[in-house]
């Protein structure tokens, strides 16, 4: 990857969070390079999801720092972090079930200038009107790209699990964040759809969105990532290209087990 390594997309230093006496994340530090797909793997209970919640502002860390494009994020609420250009997904797809697929995609674009209360009544100026028009056209294009055009007027809650994953990806395309953190995007996804998602992740990179992906599906991790971070018991135990981790004894002990060594 030729992307500059001067400022990483995300830098996490000494992130710690405990619930009661249990340390979910303890002294977790890693760097996700700009313009790359970084994998985050580890056994259940390793603290991956808590780490994502801490980074995206859904939980407050006990200590540690999170730097996004060099800016400290810890303590900021989720919506501010999202507006700065860091979008995260959730383990279960979180569509807006009562809204249509198209509405789900359009509303993924936060547009503060048009979401005010007064704007709703007084109406929009021509420049904002054309912005709304462009936005709709852009959303339709994205739906076409993900093969969701036929479903655009369907309420998102009626979709299958796999289709909801696609809607989630379409929303990220719409939001155009600088960094997206995908929390187990392959959960309940068949191999054909999986390939489509791998292609979509490549498209994220091409459009300037760096990616962190948490996943248990190791072939997928191998397929899409350039760099992998392994967490266990709340901290990072190894990192590097996926191939190099296969032979790492700590990683084998903690996570890979005998599956990959054979």
């Amino acid at each position, binding site marked *: 990857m030729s992307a500059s390594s001067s400022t990483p997309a995300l830098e996490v230093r000494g992130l710690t969070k405990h619930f009661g006496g249990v340390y979910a994340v303890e002294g977790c530090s890693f760097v996700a390079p700009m313009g790359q797909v970084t994998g985050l793997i580890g056994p259940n209970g390793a603290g991956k999801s808590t780490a994502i919640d801490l980074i995206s502002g859904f939980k407050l860390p006990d200590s540690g720092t999170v730097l996004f494009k060099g800016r400290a994020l810890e303590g900021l609420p989720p919506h501010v972090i999202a507006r700065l250009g860091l979008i995260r997904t959730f383990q279960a797809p*979180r569509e807006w079930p*009562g809204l249509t697929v198209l509405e789900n995609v359009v509303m993924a674009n936060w547009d503060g200038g048009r979401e005010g209360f007064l704007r*709703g009544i007084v109406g929009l100026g021509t420049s904002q009107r054309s912005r709304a028009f462009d936005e709709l056209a852009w959303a339709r294009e994205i739906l076409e790209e993900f093969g969701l055009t036929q479903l655009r007027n369907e309420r998102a809650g009626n979709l299958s699990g796999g289709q909801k994953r696609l809607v989630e990806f379409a929303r990220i395309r719409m939001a155009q964040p600088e960094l997206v953190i995908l929390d187990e995007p392959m959960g309940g996804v068949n191999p054909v759809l999986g390939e489509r998602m791998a292609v979509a992740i490549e498209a994220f990179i091409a459009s300037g969105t760096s990616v962190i992906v948490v996943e248990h599906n190791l072939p997928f991790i191998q397929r899409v990532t350039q760099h992998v971070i392994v967490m266990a018991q709340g901290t990072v135990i190894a990192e590097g290209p996926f191939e190099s981790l296969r032979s790492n004894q700590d990683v084998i002990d903690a996570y890979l087990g005998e599956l990959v060594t054979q």
Partner: protein
Amino acid sequence: MSAYIVSILTEGAIFGIMALGLNVIWGWSGDFDLAYYGYIAVGAYMTLVLTIGPPTAPAHYILGLQLPYPAAVVLAVISSMAVGLVVGLIALRHLRGIYFSIVTLGAVYVMYVFAGQYVPLFDGYNGLSGLFDPMGDWFGLDYLSYQWFLMGLCLVMFGLVLLFMWRLSGSRFGMALRTLREDERAAAAFGRDIYRLKLKGYVLGAGVGGFAGALFAAYLSAFNPSAWSPIEIIVLYAAVLVGGRGNIWGVVLGVFIMGIVVQESTRFLPEVPGHPQIVLALRGVIIGLVLVLFLRFRPQGLLPERRFVDPAPKLEPATRTA
């Protein structure tokens, strides 16, 4: 008979404004707010204390400013919004679902007891009276023509509130409120400030409720804690539910059905000798039955929330080869 129709239409229009305000809070934002009737009461009380004269013993109440009715309405709406803001700031911070409802129930109970027990505020359980035909003398109206005037005023105001809600419903603000109702964590993950947005919706709803209360005060010319019974909020919820939560036309239909058909039809039930209360009790039974049936068989209401339907993509017109 015409006096009966005039009173039904006036009540219906006021009831419609109440339901449209509740629809912002419950229909769009998705919060089951039990304090809503409190904002209607604040609107009604404030309109009264601002328009009637100073208290004469033994009555006690604040203000008594004899302001013109329109000015009083504006201030009453602001008062309702202020009370809504205080309740919202507390209840919407972290609480959702049933916990939010419990806190708002507590809030409305505090308001109710305070209005009833703290006599110097709104004269306790005696309540306030004396707002006779506001704006009537501006146009030199007698009692009968004033009833027509008030009906027209309420219907026009209902139309304006409806127009306002229609604009809001399709707006980006209305859509943002719906994303909160549908999944607020996802809404936050895509940049929406949940607390602020919910608070805006809540205060707006409270203001609309207060406005309905201000019209209600003109219609009743009096207000006291007995005008403020717990069943009222259930009827409002029933109207929004039956018509279609989130759909303003559904709310209008629901108001027609619950407010007029159900409320008024029981008037024609035959009186049971020796049991004068039974007809009124039946009304409660009917409302409860309608609620249960709708929740069981058609929870989305008669007119479900509209969605934006994107038309089929237009085919490119064939290029002419002339």
